[in-house]
C-alpha cells in the first residue's frame, strides 16, 4: 500500500487554503509550514512568466513527497524517520530524533523538512487542530506525515478535505481500482525531480 496525493495543477488557484488547513490541523508554530503553495511563473510569488500578452502562471503545492525510495530514511542514524510499512507514509518520530539534520541534507526537495530551531512559539495561547497530533519538540525535525492521525480514522488529510477547488486527491496508488489510480491513469502527470530516483508519491496532474 502506498498512500499518495494527486494535485491537479489545472484546478489549483493558489489560494493557500491547503497550507492554512495543514497549519491549523497540525498546530504548527509561527513561521513553520509543512505544506506550501509555490508559483510556477516569474521571479516572485504570484507573478507570471513571459511578457505581455504572452504570460503564464500556475501553482504547485510542496510538502513531503512520501517517496517510495526515500533518501531521508536511509541516512537517519537512529531510525527516527522511517517509511510506515502499512501506509507507505514517511513518518517522523520526535522522541527518537537527535536533531542531526542529516535527513534535511539528504532530501532533494527544498524546505519540506522543517527543523524546530527554537521552542515552538505560537501567536495564540491555545492549541489548535487535532488533539491526536504529537507536540513539536525543540531541536528535532518535523514534516508532513500525510495527516497519519486522520488517515488512521478513515479520513482524508486536512489539506485534501479543505481544498475548495477539489484539486487534491488522496488514495492508495498501489490499488489500481482506487480513485487516485484511475485519475492518474486518465491524465498526464509528473513527479518533482523524478531524475533523483526517489520516486515521489505526490503526483502533479498537468
Amino acid at each position: 500500500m502506498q498512500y499518495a496525493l494527486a494535485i491537479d495543477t489545472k484546478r489549483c488557484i493558489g489560494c493557500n487554503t491547503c497550507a492554512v488547513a495543514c497549519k491549523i490541523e497540525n498546530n504548527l508554530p509561527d513561521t513553520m509550514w509543512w505544506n506550501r503553495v509555490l508559483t510556477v511563473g516569474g521571479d516572485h510569488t504570484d507573478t507570471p512568466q513571459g511578457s505581455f500578452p504572452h504570460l503564464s502562471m500556475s501553482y504547485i503545492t510542496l510538502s513531503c513527497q512520501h517517496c517510495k525510495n526515500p533518501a531521508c530514511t536511509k541516512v537517519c542514524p537512529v531510525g527516527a524517520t522511517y517509511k510506515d510499512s502499512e501506509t507507505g507514509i514517511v513518518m517522523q518520530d520526535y522522541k527518537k530524533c537527535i536533531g542531526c539534520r542529516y535527513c534535511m541534507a539528504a532530501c532533494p526537495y527544498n524546505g519540506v523538512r522543517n527543523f524546530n530551531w527554537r521552542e515552538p512559539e505560537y501567536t495564540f495561547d491555545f492549541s489548535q487542530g487535532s488533539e491526536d497530533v504529537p507536540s513539536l519538540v525543540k531541536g528535532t525535525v518535523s514534516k508532513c506525515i500525510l495527516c497519519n492521525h486522520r488517515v488512521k480514522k478513515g479520513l482524508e488529510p486536512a489539506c485534501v478535505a479543505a481544498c475548495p477547488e477539489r484539486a487534491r486527491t488522496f488514495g492508495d496508488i498501489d490499488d489500481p481500482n482506487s480513485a487516485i489510480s484511475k485519475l492518474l491513469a486518465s491524465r498526464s502527470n509528473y513527479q518533482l525531480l523524478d531524475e533523483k530516483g526517489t520516486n515521489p508519491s505526490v503526483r502533479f496532474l498537468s
Partner: protein
Amino acid sequence: MRKVASVAAVVAVIGLCAWIFQCMNGLQVTGMRDQSSWGLYITNFMFFVGLSAGGLIISSAPKVFKLKGFGNISKVAVLTSIVCTILAICFVVVDLGSPWNIWHLFVYGHFTSPLMWDLCVLTLYLVLSIVYLVMLRREDDAAGVSSKLRGMSIAAFLVAILVHSVTAWIFSLNVSRAFWNTSLMAPWFVASALVSGTALVLVVVVALRRAGKLRLEDENVQKMAFILGVFVAVDLFFLFCDVLTGAYGGAGDAYDAIIMVLAGPVAPFFWAEVILGVVCLVIAFKPRLRASANLCVVASICAILGVFCKRAQIIEDGFGNVNLTYPGVETGPAVHGADGAWQGIGSALAYWPTGLECLVVLGIIALGVAVFCFVYPKIGQDR
C-alpha cells in the same frame, strides 16, 4: 606550555558556556536554517577528521612501507591525531539539536546511515590511535621496529584512510546535492587529509622545537615540507578533475554547482583554496625557500587554510544550489540581512555563522590545545 594550557582552558570554558546557551535557546542562535541545515560545526567536523587522519598516516606510513621516516615526530603526530579525533567528535555533538538524546545512537542505531558508519569507524580509530601511542612510547628504548608495532601501524594506517573515506561518504552518497554526489569525494578527502594533517604536524613540531620541547633536524622539516608539496599537488589535481567534469557539460545540476564555486557567491573560498595551494607548492618545491623552517610553517598554514576553504565550499555550495527553484521555496525563520528579507536563491551565500557559533568553535579548538599541552609532557621525548 603550562601558560598556553591555562589560557586555552579558559577559552574552552567560554566555549562551553556558549554551547550551554545554544542548548537552552535552540539552534536558532546559529546561522543554520532549513535551507542550509549544516554549517560551521559540520565544516569543522570534516576538517578535523582530516587533520587527524593525515597526522596518523604520515606517522605510520614510514613504518608500514619500511621507509626512513621524518625523524622523531611519530609520537607528536599521533598525539595531534588523537586530539583532532576528539575535537571532531565534539563538533558533531555541538551540532546536534537534541544532544541530550545522543544515547539514542547506541540504542536505536540505524546502520544504513553513513553517520552511523562514521561513528563506528571514529570510535575504532580513536581506540587504535591511543593504543598505538602507548606502544610507541613503550618501544622507545627498543632498537628498530618490532613486528607488533609494525602490525599496529598497518592497522592504524588503514583505519585512518577509512575514517576519512567514510566522512566523505556522509556527503557524497546523497543524490540531493550535485556538488557532493561524486565518487571522487572519498579519495579526494584522503588527499586533503594528508595535506592538512602533514601541515598541522609540521607547524606543531616546529613550534615545539622553538619552545625547546623537541629535537628535530632541519633536514626532516624540509622533507616534510617537500612531501606536503606532493600532497598539495595531488589535492589540486583532484580539484581540477572535479571542476572540469562539472563544467564541461555546459548545463545541468553539476554545471550549476561548479559555476557557483568558480564565479558565484562561493568563489572567494574556491580561489582562496587555489591561491593558497599554489603558494604552498612554490615554497615546498623550491629548495632555497623550504630551507627556511619559517617559510615551511607559512606553507603549512596556507595548506591548512586551503583545505578549510574546500570544506566551507562543500557546505556553501551544497546548500546554496537548490533543486527546486520556485520563488519562496525556503522555509523557517528568516536568516539573511538586517531587513529580514531573503536575497533570492543563488545570489548570496546560503549560510554564514553567527558569533556564538564561532565562540563554540574557538572553545572546542582551545580544548584541543589544552589537552595537547597537558598530555605532551607525558608521552616522553621522542628519540
